[in-house]
């Protein structure tokens, strides 16, 4: 069974690679390369796979999942300028692709065992653009 927790955070980012020149960044990313950054209301969906516990009837207490996502992701990302304040985005371009991979890496170690497995991470940058990541092998 899949269970999904949805959270939101607001952050700014600039789509810029520090290894490229201003001109190259502008050509590659267009308006999103503005060095002063711009922001999004991100929506993050974290999906776990597991079977409901016979006693509690729950795959994982959603309160616990919420706390975990809050502590490991929202606290770190919310109201931050990702490029300047949230590693690895000082050297990794904070596209939604890389945000999804980073979120996966932050949550995965906490979600091993207890019959629960992290299945996927979905990051909505806007309501019209989202990214799914199901781990390296998928």
């Amino acid at each position, binding site marked *: 069974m899949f269970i999904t927790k949805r959270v939101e955070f607001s952050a700014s980012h600039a*789509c810029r690679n520090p*290894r490229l020149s201003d001109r190259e960044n502008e050509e*590659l990313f*267009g308006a999103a390369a503005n060095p002063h950054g711009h922001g999004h209301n991100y929506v993050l969906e974290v999906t776990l796979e597991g079977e409901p516990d016979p006693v509690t009837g729950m795959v994982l207490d959603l309160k616990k999942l919420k706390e975990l996502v809050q502590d490991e992701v929202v606290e770190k990302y919310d109201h931050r300028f990702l490029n300047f304040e949230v590693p690895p985005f000082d050297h990794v371009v904070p596209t939604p*692709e890389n945000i999804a991979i980073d979120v996966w890496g932050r949550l995965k170690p906490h979600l091993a065992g207890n019959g629960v497995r992290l299945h996927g991470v979905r990051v909505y940058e806007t309501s*019209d*653009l989202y990214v*799914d990541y199901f781990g390296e092998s998928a």
Partner: protein
Amino acid sequence: MIRITRKFRFSASHRLHAAELSADANRELYGKCNNPYGHGHNYEIEVTARGPVDDMTGRAVDLRLLERLVREHVVGPLDQKSLNADVAEFQAKVPTTENLAIEIYRRLTQAWRSVFPGEWPVLERVRIVETARNIFEIGEAHGQK
């Protein structure tokens, strides 16, 4: 691998009417959707591409290329059109949203290589929301090539 999904919208009209069936049978089968003057929807389509993240750009797909592809081959030709009257493929085929999904997937598959000639990204699926209550999906997972 990353899946990246971009949503597009277009508005079009259609009439569901199967040429092989009698007028009565069509009315019975399609009900209101058989109205001879047609009716319209605000269609939403989600296009999902899959690929590895490019180290330099941080992107799995160049969204500008994907947007241009979908606008040129899908949104442009279908927006503000009568699917039955204006779209060649639906002269002989009923423009149900199942058939529309097949047609959109075919158009994107056909044009894909000219825009994305490399191994990645690949087209993974197309999802069409005809109304908030009627949703259709087609793609690799459903055996489409």
